[in-house]
């Protein structure tokens, strides 16, 4: 199974790409997925102002989604100002 991570704004620069496809052996919770990423990226993705959207729907703060095949998880840093 494969999941897709999407990085917006400055998180894209940190990740080196706007999207990342990850193969998974089985559904995994977010902390386990982050543990497989470079430490600086994982830290930035867990920043207090970063919001999450699972398959296009915003998650409430503190949600710890479990990702399965085909899921898309977007990391949304604060939007830019005027």
């Amino acid at each position, binding site marked *: 199974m494969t999941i897709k991570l999407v990085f917006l*704004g*400055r998180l894209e620069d940190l990740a080196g790409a*706007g999207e990342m496809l990850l193969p998974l052996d089985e559904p995994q919770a977010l902390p386990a997925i982050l543990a497989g990423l470079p430490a600086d990226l994982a830290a930035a993705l867990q920043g207090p102002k970063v919001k999450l959207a699972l*398959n*296009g729907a915003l998650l409430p703060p503190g949600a710890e989604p479990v990702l399965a095949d085909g899921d898309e998880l*977007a990391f*949304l840093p604060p939007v*830019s*100002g*005027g």
Partner: protein
Amino acid sequence: MPADVRLAEAPFVPDAEIGAFARAQPQAGGLVSFTGQVRVDGPAGAGDVEALELRHYPPLTLPGMRALADEALARWTLTGLLIVHRIGVMLPGDPIVLVCAAARHRREAFAAADFAMDHLKSESWFWKREKRGGLWRWVEPRAQDHADLSRWQNARA
């Protein structure tokens, strides 16, 4: 009356949009438009913005803009509302955003356009980077945007 809400991937011509919008609003007494464009900073200098890019997250961006339009329509009595927002790379002088609001009475048109801009600027799913001196840099949130938003949180302003 549904709002006309669009993302534009290529340059658009605000006055052409304004004209088409106005001609569709014969019952309106007043029409307000706001056009935001990439500023030309005057005689070229190293600190000037050479280009601007807006990225977005498609599953959220247009639905969020439509929800904002619905909120404006619920809050004021409008005969029409148009929101067009660019995405992608823009050059100085290029339009970024256009909001048009039409109403029988001018105060409602002014308030709705002002409200839509404050919310587009601070609550829409756009990430902006600017190119200065050949280098791209992400633009951070501004405190002013939150002050602008707070104007709308009490009674009908």
